[in-house]
């Protein structure tokens, strides 16, 4: 297999504490060429598809979101009702927005805290050489990823429904409850269901990320450790975990960011309910922009922007915290 080192990605991660084995394959790319002559045309041709779509569907929308957020605009007719910071003013005092933000953050934090460790554990177990049926079990745990989130949501609304859903049927058969209870009737249990179903659904993706990370630890390092008499636990804590740490930071970041986008599951599982108590930011934006006439595009845009800022601050704060923690650990030698 060809070795591939995403060199620029590594720069975001601490550079100092890597073992020589890890440092070896990096950077075959010291010679990036200048383009000459006719090749310049090819350069433009190669960049064009990406740039066109990127400008149209990412950069321009970003700029437009900022622009719309200063208008009271319903999406119909010209954008001429400039309201300045009014949208922001209303959002800052909109309790539903803040409830959505809090719910989104709780959701993102809980799913990340649950899915990362257990998917790592599964990956460690499912990369053991002695284990039989690895392929089978990997497929099993990956399976929920192939059904659309929205469908997963609908299936679980049925499985969890109080009158004849599977969960209540099992609980009744075991004699634990005598009346069906409705997990969607309460904000906290509804949020918990969202978290658990989401973990169930996305688990396979993170398991595969971890498996990929684990497979990149060179076999020789384990062999050397085995010769020195290291047991499985020592190998795990002294070799595996430290060596996959740079990748782990990226996986954790992706995990949190992706969880902040949660939408389809909320639509199908709780529809923001009971009442509005499980609103998340995507759903809040959707409801304002497309949910009911008159559409409030300006308001939705301001909400989107405000949340992006909050998310960005939190994510970068996390990055800074991780880096500081690593530096402290270095200094104190722990």
């Amino acid at each position, binding site marked *: 297999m060809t070795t591939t080192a995403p060199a620029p990605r590594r720069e975001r991660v601490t550079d100092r504490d890597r073992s020589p084995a890890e440092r070896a394959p990096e950077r*075959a790319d010291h010679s990036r060429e200048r383009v000459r002559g006719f090749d310049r045309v090819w350069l433009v041709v190669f960049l064009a598809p990406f740039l066109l779509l990127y400008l149209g569907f990412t950069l321009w929308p970003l700029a437009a979101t900022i622009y719309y957020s200063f208008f009271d605009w319903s999406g119909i007719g010209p954008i001429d009702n400039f309201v300045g910071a009014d949208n922001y003013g209303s959002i800052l005092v909109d309790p539903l927005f803040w409830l959505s933000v809090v719910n989104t953050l709780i959701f993102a934090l809980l799913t990340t805290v649950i899915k990362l460790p257990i998917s790592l554990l599964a990956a460690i177990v499912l990369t053991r050489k002695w284990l039989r049926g690895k392929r089978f079990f990997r497929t099993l745990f990956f399976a929920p990823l192939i*059904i659309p989130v929205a469908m997963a949501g609908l299936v679980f609304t049925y499985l969890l429904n109080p009158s004849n859903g599977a969960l209540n049927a099992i609980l009744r058969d075991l004699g634990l409850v005598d009346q069906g209870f409705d997990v969607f009737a309460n904000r906290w249990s509804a949020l918990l269901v969202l978290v658990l179903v989401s973990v169930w659904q996305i688990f396979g993706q993170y398991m595969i990320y971890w498996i990929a990370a684990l497979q*990149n630890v060179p076999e020789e390092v384990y062999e050397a450790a085995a010769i020195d008499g290291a047991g499985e636990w020592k190998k795990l804590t002294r070799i595996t975990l430290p060596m996959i740490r740079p990748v782990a930071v990226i996986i954790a970041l992706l995990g949190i960011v992706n969880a902040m986008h949660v939408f389809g599951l909320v639509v199908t599982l709780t529809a923001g309910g009971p009442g509005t108590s499980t609103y998340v930011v995507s759903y809040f934006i959707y409801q304002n922009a497309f949910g009911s006439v008159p559409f409030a595009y300006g308001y939705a845009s301001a909400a989107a922007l405000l949340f992006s800022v909050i998310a960005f601050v939190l994510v970068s704060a996390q990055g800074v915290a991780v880096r500081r923690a690593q530096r402290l650990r270095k200094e104190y030698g722990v």
Partner: protein
Amino acid sequence: MAAITKTTGIDQAARRSHRTRANLIALPILAVIGLVWVYPFLWTISAAFKTQAGMFTSGASLLPDQLNFDNFVRAWVNAGFSGYFFNTVLYSVVSTLIELVKAALCGYVLARYEFPGRTLLYRMIVGTLFIPVASIIVPQFVLIENLGLLNTRAGVILAMSGGAGALYVLLFVGFFSSVPSDLFEAAKLDGAGFLKTFGLILPLAKPVIAVVVIFQFISSWNEFNIPLVFTLGQPDLQNLAVGMLSFQGEHATDWTGFAAGMTISFLPMLAIFLFFQNYFTRGLAGATKG
């Protein structure tokens, strides 16, 4: 010599029995967790064969009260699943192709060539990894509307492949950066130009291509937000994920038809994953190496 062979033999036997014991502990645990894990699938498949009445009384049971195929017929013919299915395949295939082409070309250039604005472009791509889709969907909607593509298949495809390609570009940049420069020198000595060189190097990127194809295919197959918003006025352009939702709304009691529709939609993905699984994990390991 004989002694050594003998000890290794005993060693191996001991290790083998150790492994068997480990398997005896691990396999049942994994089997139980695995069964719980895929229970919703099994339940859905079973419900697809149940009658309406049987479904409401069967609770957690996985055994259908009878084997009837009406549900599949109803879902496929009456509820428009054949259309949703066609849309889903079309959206997924085309958007995967677009993502692949744009990421491979852009990644190649970013990795191999120095040009004005390269660093800026690279940083911007990394930055967009963290933009929530929901925060830019309103202007995307306006753009598609202005292009006259609202409620068309082309509009959905454009929106689906216009967005989050950043991760894929980064994977390709990482891969092409790691190709030894000797290879490029050799190609140049043989007189290969820009395009020819790319053609020679691209096949080496198979692991990355596999990952991009599978990730993008799965995510566009499952895409919910974009098809929902961009087909609000034209339900027959919806994909399975969104169509399923309206199906539930319009046929509120037809859970067995819904289960049949769902079974139809996840079986192809399961087959694809089973077929490509090895390539996938190996590809991802190769693509993220380092």
